[in-house]
């Protein structure tokens, strides 16, 4: 699974992109976050407050119960501040 991080999530985790083999039990965006938090202190810190995090699957905004598959591109980032 291709997992992307942007803005301060990227800074905290230390990389902008990870290609991960995710356990079969991880089938939603919320479960993915729970699993990612176990990977490093940086991950745990980045996902400490999910109110500050948005998630997109295949470049569309989704919620924390959205299904995911190994072929998906999943991105995590803070609320946007462009314009």
């Amino acid at each position, binding site marked *: 699974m291709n997992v*992307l991080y*942007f*803005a*301060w999530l990227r*800074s905290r985790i230390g990389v902008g992109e990870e290609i991960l083999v995710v356990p079969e039990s991880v089938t939603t965006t919320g479960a993915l976050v729970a699993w990612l938090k176990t990977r490093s202190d940086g991950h745990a810190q980045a996902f400490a407050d999910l109110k500050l995090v948005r998630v*997109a699957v295949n*470049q*569309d*905004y989704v919620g924390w119960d959205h299904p995911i598959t190994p072929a998906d591109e999943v*991105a995590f*980032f*803070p*609320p*946007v*501040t*462009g*314009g």
Partner: protein
Amino acid sequence: MIRVQAEDFDPGAELAAFSTGNGKVGGICMFLGLVRDYLGDHPGQGAGVNAMTLEHYPGMTERQLAAVEAEARDRWPLHAVLIIHRHGRLEPGERIVLVATASSHREAAFQSCHFLMDWLKTKAPFWKIEHTDQGDQWVAAKEADDDAARRWDR
């Protein structure tokens, strides 16, 4: 039309190309967003900003902006829509974003342009980091921007 680019653009040239004056367009509304040289909401309140860098999510940006344009065209009768958004390092006074809409009617031009900016502000995956003498700082999303976007809910 959607353009996401690091390069600067010339609003006058964009406008000239946009306003073909085909006899059907009665009004064009354009918004141009520029980099300010201060943090916070009021000049003199916070530290000076030397520059900012706009990070974005290539692919999703274009996809979300195209969705926002489609939504505007669905809501208002528009002859043309142009969205240009820059990324990368930008200094105070530099152009960040241009949104323009052309319609037969002034109200549709104004509303659709305003709508596009409000939606873009909350949906297009861009993030600003400001570079100040005190260090770098990611810009926090504003409640006011969410409120502005919610006006257009239906």
